[in-house]
Structure formats: C-alpha cells, structure tokens
C-alpha cells in the first residue's frame, strides 16, 4: 500500500496495521523518518514538501513492485507526507515484510534510498532566517549507488 498524504500520521499505528496485514511473514522491518527541529541554518519552523501527481505515485508504485520482486517481499507499505510538516512530525514511513530478516532490511533500505534521491518530491526548509530548497546530500547519492541497476543508471530497487 502506498499513501501520499497532507495529513499527519502515527508511524506506530501504521506499523501495527502493517504487522496485522503481514501476519505469517517471518520478518517485518520498518523505518520512520521525522522532521528534525534544527539545522545548520537554525531552528526549523517547518518543511514544505511538494509532489507531482501522478508521477510521484507511479514512481513509488514501481519502486515497491521492483523491491517486492527482488527481495521476495510478502508485503510493503510506504507513507509519505506532502504539504507543510512541523518539527517532530513524521514525514516518511516504510515497512517491509519477508520470510527472513535480511531481505526485509535490504528492501526497506533500498526503498528509503529511492525516496530520498529518486522519488518525485521537492523539499523546502523554512527557518527564521528564510526558506531554502533542499537537494540530496552527496552521501545520499553514494548510498543510492548500492542499489544501482537500471539501464539509465537510476536506482530502481530492481536486481
């Protein structure tokens, strides 16, 4: 299941629902990402996340489909916020289920790298000193090359 939402959500509730949905799987892994309260530019007032539907949605659907095939997942769930998001609020949730732990860990890791560097989102950080658009850090691109595979060099979580 893939959800792109303007509304705040509770990762713990999302995980409970996912665990019920994935009952019978040997391993469930989840990642929750939150807005940090401060940055190099000072205290964060909010993040603003923009998407371009339907490309944002179809891109994530394809990444989840690829990861599900590559790691033989029994279930996967992605929630991503858009709009204005406050410090301390969850911005992203990824959960994967598989027969064994390694597959679930790696698939969740790959999906997070996809969301950080490939998914169609644009992120603006608003602080007291102004607003700036964020671009992925070099480290994010290095992380992403661990999964690189597709013919145009972009990461897809495909084997």
């Amino acid at each position, binding site marked *: 299941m893939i959800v792109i939402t303007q509304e705040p959500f509770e990762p713990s509730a999302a995980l409970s629902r996912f665990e019920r949905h994935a009952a019978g799987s040997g391993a469930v892994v989840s990642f929750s990402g939150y807005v940090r309260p401060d940055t190099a530019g000072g205290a964060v007032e909010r993040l603003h996340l923009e998407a371009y539907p339907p490309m944002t949605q179809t891109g994530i659907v394809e990444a989840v489909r690829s990861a599900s095939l590559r790691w033989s997942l029994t279930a996967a769930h992605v929630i991503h916020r858009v709009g204005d998001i406050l410090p301390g609020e969850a911005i992203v949730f990824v959960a994967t289920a598989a027969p064994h732990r390694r597959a679930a860990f790696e698939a969740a890791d790959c999906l997070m790298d996809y969301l950080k560097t490939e998914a169609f989102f644009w992120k603006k950080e608003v602080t007291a000193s102004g607003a700036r658009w964020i671009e*992925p850090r070099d480290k994010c691109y290095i992380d992403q090359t661990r999964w690189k595979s597709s013919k145009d060099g972009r990461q897809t979580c495909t084997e």
Partner: protein
Amino acid sequence: MHIVYLGKLADIAGRPAEDIVLPATIATSSALRAWLDDTRAFQGALLHRSVRMAVNNEIVVDPHPVVDQDEVALMPPVSGG
C-alpha cells in the same frame, strides 16, 4: 500547453504553473527550455543539466518532440524522505 514548475523553479517563475500557446517555431523539449528560459526570469536555470523535463508524465531526454496539447513539467533535483 500546460507547464508545471516544480520546487525552486516555481519560486523563480513566480507561479507554480502556466498555460501558454506554444509558438509554432518550437517543436522540441530543448527549444522549449531555451525559449522559456529566455522569456521568463530563469537566467539559465532551465538549461542546467540537473533540470529534468516530463512530457505527459514521462521523463524525456532532450530533444523530445513537444506539441501544444502536451503537459510539460520542469523538475529540479528531487529530495524526499
């Protein structure tokens, strides 16, 4: 043609989207980039390699054919999570 500016490009353009009549002389994504960059306040921002273009919800590689009925999105580097 419906044109969508994403991320920082919307700030530069001063609007998130606009509807234009595509000039008859423009037939490719590359020509469209150059024309928009020249006639709006982009000052080269649309010509940067990192700015991708989607035509009707598919990423294209310059030069890609464009027609007046298309929806075009101009995308700076993405950043989610």
